[in-house]
């Protein structure tokens, strides 16, 4: 059989989960990571990252809105997908995740953004006319009170939501890890470390994304990005990456040491079919190199320009590396046979429903949405013109 090496069960010839299912944890990971960066400022009062607070929230929203789309394209019957909300099977991690997603979207993200922007939205509503005014009025849910009392409520509630949001973000992406980690049939996936590894790699990817977006958006607007902010973000990226790397290293060492029945088959797979995506892209280019670059910045005094360049390179490599990690987990977990005697191949097509083209479109779409959100709810506002009290 084409692309098959050794023996596979007959039904294992075609992979079940395609690149779209790789995209999904990547996108939700960016959401969780971006949110945790935002919460650094709000809850832990890390003043330095304040310039990225709203950008991080908007980024999280843009990506979370796109997150269900790869799944819808992947399902055999997307029109039945709402059944997950109607008759969720409580033992199924996938079913319960639907509610975690909904909770996170509605209660955490939307509510927090609303609370943070409410005052400005009211001001923008007052300062505009026609359709724009109607839009902002609707967004504020027709509230108009921006007196100090109301703003205090906004602030306290917002802080509460953010505090609630941190475990929610952990739950959001930890759950995705659990969806894989709880499958005892698949030894590449089945480990209690999976939710934690997913979570920390999500944090790493989210921080890297917000850092890159901050640099990119400020550059596009012709504004200088705040260096103290970037330095702080990069430092947090470095710490998170160290934890993530340690966790993945622990998983690796554990596997090699225990060498259970699946080990030889998996080891062979990593050295052959997964060599480029795992050893080269994920580990060397996507983990060790950015770690080295970030470590260099921590240890050696470098000029601002050099630091900016290193951050940009490290950020990009990080994102590529984390995507590769998702790829290696999802696709890698399906390349070997559950008989541990053979391997199959992933034939990714281009312009089909689950091909490369829709995957690329879905990767680009959140940026388009973010662009709209930034226009609608600018993260860095010049003080709104004081309007006569209405």
């Amino acid at each position, binding site marked *: 059989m084409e692309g098959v090496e050794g023996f596979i069960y007959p039904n294992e010839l075609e992979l079940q989960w395609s690149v779209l299912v790789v995209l999904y944890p990547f996108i939700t990971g960016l959401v969780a990571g971006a949110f945790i960066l935002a919460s650094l400022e709000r809850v832990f009062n890390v003043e330095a990252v304040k310039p990225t607070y709203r950008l991080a929230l908007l980024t999280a929203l843009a990506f979370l809105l796109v997150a269900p789309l790869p799944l819808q394209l992947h399902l055999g019957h997307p029109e039945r997908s*709402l059944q997950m*909300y*109607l*008759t969720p*099977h*409580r033992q199924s991690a996938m079913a319960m995740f639907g509610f975690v997603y909904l909770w996170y979207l*509605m209660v955490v993200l939307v*509510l927090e953004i*609303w609370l943070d922007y409410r005052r400005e939205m009211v001001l923008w509503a007052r300062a505009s006319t026609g359709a724009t005014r109607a839009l902002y009025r609707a967004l504020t*849910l027709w509230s108009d009170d921006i007196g100090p009392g109301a703003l205090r409520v906004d602030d306290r509630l917002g802080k509460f939501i953010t505090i609630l949001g941190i475990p929610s973000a952990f739950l959001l992406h930890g759950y995705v890890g659990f969806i894989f980690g709880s499958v005892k049939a698949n030894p590449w996936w089945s480990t209690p470390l999976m939710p934690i590894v997913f979570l920390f790699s999500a944090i790493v990817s989210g921080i890297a994304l917000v850092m890159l977006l901050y640099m990119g958006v400020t550059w596009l607007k012709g504004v200088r990005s705040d260096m103290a902010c970037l330095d702080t973000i990069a430092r947090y990226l470095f710490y998170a990456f160290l934890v993530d790397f340690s966790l993945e290293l622990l998983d690796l060492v554990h596997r090699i040491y225990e060498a259970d029945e699946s080990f030889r088959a998996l080891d062979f797979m990593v050295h052959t079919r997964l060599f480029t995506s795992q050893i080269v892209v994920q580990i060397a280019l996507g983990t060790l190199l950015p770690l080295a670059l970030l470590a260099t910045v921590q240890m050696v005094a470098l000029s601002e320009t050099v630091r900016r360049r290193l951050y940009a390179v490290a950020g990009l490599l990080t994102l590529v590396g984390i995507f590769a990690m998702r790829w290696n987990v999802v696709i890698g977990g399906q390349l070997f046979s559950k008989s541990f005697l053979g391997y199959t191949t992933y034939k990714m097509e281009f312009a089909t429903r689950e091909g490369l083209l829709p995957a690329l479109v879905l990767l680009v779409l959140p940026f388009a949405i973010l662009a709209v959100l930034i226009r609608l709810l600018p993260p860095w506002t010049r003080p709104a013109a004081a309007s006569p009290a209405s």
Partner: protein
Amino acid sequence: MAALFAAGVVVFLLWRWWMVPADFGVYGHYRAGALEANRLRPIVYAGQGACLECHADVAEARQSGRHAAVTCETCHGPLGPHARGEDAATPQRPDGGTLCVQCHASIAGRPPVVPQILVEEHAGEERCVTCHSPHAPGF
């Protein structure tokens, strides 16, 4: 805001009450109708009992032979429609030259529960049914 969420919850509950299939959860976390759906497939293999209804003479002949434990449809293929009287045409007789070797060719791994022969050595070009009656194959 609170009002909006409360409204959302109410809408969800109403929608759920409307959309969840009525027979869901009767026996477990599934639609009871699915049990029925799985039962109501057409029968393709009639089962030996059906054949014997009309072909009892063959049954008698086979009972003492070495193929007694082999059911009719093993060789004759699925005959459910025929047993129900649906098929207008007479069922095809299986090919007595190629069918037998599926079980009786000597291949590695085949336990000695059936007699096995090396096909070319045993009969050359001769068809199996020339010497062996399929319903009472022993000599």
